[in-house]
């Protein structure tokens, strides 16, 4: 996931692969402490990697919390729902921390952490909205366009239900709010119920 490298630390000799290369990736070291970074757009590859990490950590120890640090612009809904479902499935508690920004899909992951374990840094920003699409798809006739729109609506409903469930708001309120982009700073996010604590 990450690219940054640190000089080799001899206390980390168990990291065989990175050791052979003479350095250990920062994110590999963080993974040792059950920390996952979501720092890119949501797509299928990244979602598969993230859910694999979650499953692995849960299998290793399902009592210690797993931490997800989020700094993301959001992305594909399929990727988001993949990660979300795995988060809900595993037994280990999940601590989510917004560092910098959690937009769109990132905000849903932030809200989906274990209740009471959702944090945001003081100056971080969050944005929530409904599904954004490129529409209509060229080459689709009217029948397909209508079906695709129905599908998008159902996906959007799913998302809104998730947000409503984790923020404690009514579905109608979330649906109404998410008709446009809602930008929030840490304090407003706390008020909206997406996080439980601000890290000062």
């Amino acid at each position, binding site marked *: 996931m990450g690219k940054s490298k640190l000089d080799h630390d001899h206390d980390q000799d168990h990291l065989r692969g990175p050791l052979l290369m003479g350095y250990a990736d920062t994110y590999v070291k963080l993974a040792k402490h059950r920390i996952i970074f979501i720092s890119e757009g949501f797509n299928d590859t990244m979602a598969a990697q993230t859910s694999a990490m979650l499953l692995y950590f849960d299998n290793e120890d399902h009592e210690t919390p797993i931490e997800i640090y989020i700094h993301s612009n959001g992305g594909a809904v399929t990727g988001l729902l993949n990660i979300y479902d795995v988060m809900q499935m595993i037994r280990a508690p999940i601590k989510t921390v917004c560092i910098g920004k959690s937009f769109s899909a990132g905000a849903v992951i932030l809200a989906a952490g274990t209740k009471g374990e959702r944090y945001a840094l003081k100056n971080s920003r969050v944005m929530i*909205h409904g*599904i954004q699409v490129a529409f*209509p798809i*060229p*080459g689709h*006739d009217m*029948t397909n366009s209508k079906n695709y*729109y129905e599908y998008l609506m159902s996906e959007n409903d799913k998302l809104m239900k998730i947000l409503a469930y984790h923020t404690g708001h009514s579905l109608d309120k979330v649906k109404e709010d998410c008709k446009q982009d809602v930008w929030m700073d840490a304090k407003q996010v706390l008020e909206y119920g997406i996080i439980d604590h601000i890290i000062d």
Partner: protein
Amino acid sequence: MNTIVTETTEHGEMPMDVYQKLANDRILFICDSINDNLATDIVATLLLKDSEDSDKKITLFINSQGGDIRNTLMIIDMMNMIDSPIETVCIGAAMDEAAVILASGTPGMRFATQNSQIAVSQLVNDWMARANLTDAKKYLDLAVSDNKRMMEIFSKTTKKPLKQVMADFDRRVFMNASHAAKYGIIDKVVNVTK
């Protein structure tokens, strides 16, 4: 491709574009996908030729895979607006939007050459915009109403009920010239065999 030919006039040898020359004789070509440029040229020429003489027919030769629905409806509106009778002749193929133009010629003056192919389907999107779902619904509604408009034109020109036309063209239908004549999209097949 060079379309310039020389012509001897009283001023001597003059270069002349074939299409321009044909346009002077009230023959226009819709032989490309129906885009902004083509549609504007056609509409401008229709207006010009109509203003010169509104009793003589204008001929549209059509060989097109279709194109933009907005431009198509613009051409059809203009065809209906001017007084000159409009003869439409399908040479090669008239697909989707092009078939609507073919069918919109003056009744009794819609032709297709023997080997031409005509295809009709419901509207197929050819554009895309980034939107939230509220706006996406509006785009969908727009496309659906364009589709309905297209089918209404077919219903009017083929003298068939709208319901039947919509059912018939729910999936793409390919027709040869004689099928199209039977359905009422054209009036007569032009025999070109010698």
